[in-house]
């Protein structure tokens, strides 16, 4: 990666550039395809249509094409003294300026159509509001990779042609992905329900039930297909910028994730994966709301790091991120906690190690949370009436994000909870001071 594809010369990004001339085609593909489908339905059902109807249809499609071309014409971008700037908009001009010092991550996204034409999208995120995100859709794939490396180098403050160190950590096995996907709760249970409905429907000759079952199967099928295509060939590697995540079957993506953005790591073991000893590793990531047109893995608060692997492999990946804390198994709550939480008691664990807190909760699926104390937003002590009678209490460590992020040290003895409550704020403050925070999000 040391030499740039254009003969070793340092690229010049500070003059105005345009997107790739074919990008309207990909953009339009998304817009026109539904349009064509809508227009084709009456055409096919009637067999033939009147001449004027065809003209109107063609006009609509042409309009969409022209709009795309116009957008391409008026869009240009450059990097001016450490700021990525994009001008766009035909009627309402819009200029987006993104200071590179605010950049949280730079991703390369290639939907199926873009891959077909050798194009790629560069997506630059700055955390904070979604207005802070910049998308360059699309550039020639080689140029996009080049720009990404250049931007990463600028963010890092090194020379763009300096080599990128990349050491792979984990790669997802395709066969395991294929076997594990149907065993996910979100796929398995609806399928069973649909199967039951079909069985009933056959006996009672209920057309309605069959239709519902078909709809469920359709939804589950597309969901499973989406999981498979986005997690196919999933790879994680360590670079000097943090984690590099790659994957995708039809459309592919390459994401960077700076380690300081990770608010918590979670090891999820669904019930039906546990006999196989499989687990998945996800990271809670600060900042950036999910946009409507992105799927969960590509953005948002949860990033998958390992879609499915053995628990040992998952822990190895976690260890490369948080160190020995990944091996911390924690201690079980006192036996009397069984009375309050009979189902989850066998799984409950909690422990502190080395600037990290580890908690294990769950009734049917085991959820292990590893949270860096430096990222803890607040500490909460809660004692319900049953816990009070049994001399138990729960200590929550809240992480940035929704209510479910963070770790719960559940049903510890009152004395331990009291001791944790006294000690944790000090430990968290010490961890905050010794860990540098990432760039602040745009206001």
């Amino acid at each position: 990666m040391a030499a740039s594809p254009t003969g070793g010369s340092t690229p010049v990004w500070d003059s105005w550039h345009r997107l790739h001339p074919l990008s309207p085609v990909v953009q339009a593909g998304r817009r026109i395809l539904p349009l064509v489908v809508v227009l084709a339905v009456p055409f096919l059902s009637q067999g033939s249509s009147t001449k004027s109807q065809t003209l109107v249809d063609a006009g609509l499609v042409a309009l969409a094409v022209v709009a795309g071309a116009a957008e391409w014409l008026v869009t240009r971008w450059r990097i001016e003294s450490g700021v990525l700037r994009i001008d766009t908009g035909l009627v309402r001009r819009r200029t987006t300026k993104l200071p590179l010092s605010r950049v949280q991550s730079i991703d390369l996204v290639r939907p199926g159509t873009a891959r077909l034409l050798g194009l790629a999208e560069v997506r630059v995120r700055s955390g904070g509001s979604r207005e802070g995100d910049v998308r360059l859709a699309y550039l020639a794939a080689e140029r996009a990779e080049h720009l990404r490396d250049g931007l990463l180098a600028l963010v890092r403050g090194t020379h763009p042609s300096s080599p990128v160190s990349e050491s792979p950590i984990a790669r997802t096995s395709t066969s395991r992905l294929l076997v594990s996907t149907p065993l996910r709760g979100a796929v398995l249970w609806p399928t069973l329900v649909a199967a039951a409905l079909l069985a009933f429907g056959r006996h009672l000759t209920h057309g309605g039930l069959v239709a519902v079952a078909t709809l469920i199967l359709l939804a589950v099928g597309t969901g499973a297909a989406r999981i498979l295509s986005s997690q196919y060939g999933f790879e994680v590697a360590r670079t000097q910028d943090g984690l590099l995540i790659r994957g995708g079957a039809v459309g592919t993506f390459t994401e960077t994730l700076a380690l300081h953005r990770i608010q918590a790591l979670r090891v999820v073991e669904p019930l039906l994966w546990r006999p196989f000893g499989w687990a998945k590793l996800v990271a809670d990531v600060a900042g950036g709301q999910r946009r409507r047109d992105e799927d969960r893995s590509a953005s948002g608060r949860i990033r998958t790091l390992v879609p499915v692997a053995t628990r040992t492999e998952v822990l190895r990946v976690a260890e490369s991120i948080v160190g020995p804390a990944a091996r911390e198994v924690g201690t079980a709550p006192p036996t009397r906690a069984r009375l309050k939480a009979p189902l989850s008691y066998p799984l409950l664990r909690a422990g502190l190690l080395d600037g990290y807190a580890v908690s294990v909760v769950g009734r049917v699926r085991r959820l292990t949370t590893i949270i860096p104390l430096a990222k803890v937003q607040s500490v909460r002590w809660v004692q319900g009436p049953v816990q009070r009678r049994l001399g138990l209490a729960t200590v929550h460590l809240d992480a940035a994000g929704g209510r479910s992020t963070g770790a719960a040290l559940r049903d510890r003895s009152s004395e331990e909870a009291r001791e944790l409550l006294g000690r944790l704020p000090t430990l968290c403050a010490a961890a905050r001071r010794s860990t540098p925070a990432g760039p602040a999000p745009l206001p």
Partner: protein
Amino acid sequence: MENPAPGDQPGIWSRPNPRLLTLRRGEVGAGAVALLLIGLGLSFTDLAVGAALAVAALLVGGFGLAYVGRRFRSWGYLERVEDLLVRRGVMFERLSVVPYGRMQTVEVTAGPLERSLGLATVQLHTASAASDARIPGLDRSTAADLRDRLVGRGEATAEGL
């Protein structure tokens, strides 16, 4: 001080203004009286239903008043050097520790009833939606002072994510 674990944090806990208790008692009382009046109205047509409602009103009023009193006594906050402690709850006792450096916004709100008694609620927000630090029933000047102090300390110790 019957709070087993959280109450024994060293320092002087501040409490909401007693007018908050007056407000809550008033709310419970109004509810009970409304129920009683409905019962009275119904007793002209059906004496049994009316009597049942009246008994219910008395029960609601009695238990409500006791609960509101305990709940009021459970509220408390303590400003420490680096963080704010807020405790509350009767059935579920809770204690939140929010470091000043983690505060993103401090909100002071006052509903119409609170305003009529010169009260306000101070709420702290962090980047986590689970952080739960709300102090109701503060005297309005106390609330404003607390807000200013918190904002000042937050600025002094602000941290990135």
